[in-house]
């Protein structure tokens, strides 16, 4: 097991109650595994069916592996402009 830190922004940060979450994950876990863990937490009802996740500042597919050293962020629906 290792712990990954997930950055949260905007509506997600409000819903989960802070700017980061520390999530324990087994080695070899994917973005989908991480999302499953997140869905068990209070505030997770805000998440859509397929939330966007960024790893090291790039959008990641849900089968991408997650490493404890990665910069991980959950990206709410963007609304720039």
């Amino acid at each position: 097991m290792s712990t990954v830190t997930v950055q949260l922004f905007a509506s997600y940060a409000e819903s989960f109650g802070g700017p980061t979450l520390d999530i324990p994950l087994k080695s070899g876990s994917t973005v989908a595994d991480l999302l499953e863990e997140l869905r068990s937490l209070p505030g997770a009802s805000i998440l859509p069916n397929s939330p966007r996740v960024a790893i090291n500042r790039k959008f990641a597919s849900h089968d991408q592996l997650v490493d404890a050293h990665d910069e991980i962020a959950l990206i709410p629906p963007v609304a720039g402009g």
Partner: protein
Amino acid sequence: MKRVALVTRAIDPAALIASIASTGYGAICLFAGTVRDTSDGRGVSAIDYSAYTSMAEAELEQIAAEAADRFGVTSLIVEHRIGVLSLGETSVAIAAAHAHRAPAFDCTRYVIEEIKKRVPIWKMEHYIDGTREWVDPTRAAGVTTK
């Protein structure tokens, strides 16, 4: 010149034009997004923009590189403002210069459309009735937070 930035100061669209102007160009196209006073029929008093800054700037760089490839535009400036903006203020400005108008128009349009799809910037609308809401373009209405 190619430059992208998130800024916390007022955006001056005229300054963007001035900084890419050159006698080698016959066209400069400017897009400026501004804070409107209504949203879905509700009176807006201000918009608070926030961002995942490092990723937003990386995505803007990527979009600018794509625009250079697609349209042959190498003179491009993109600024997006972060923070609380009043009605009428400029939230985003894109200036593209080219020898001819079509690539300048196409480049500007491409950049704003891509910003709206994939740059991690969010806006909280504040309404004149005192409520506020995160804007979620994927839903008909956002999440009312109070």
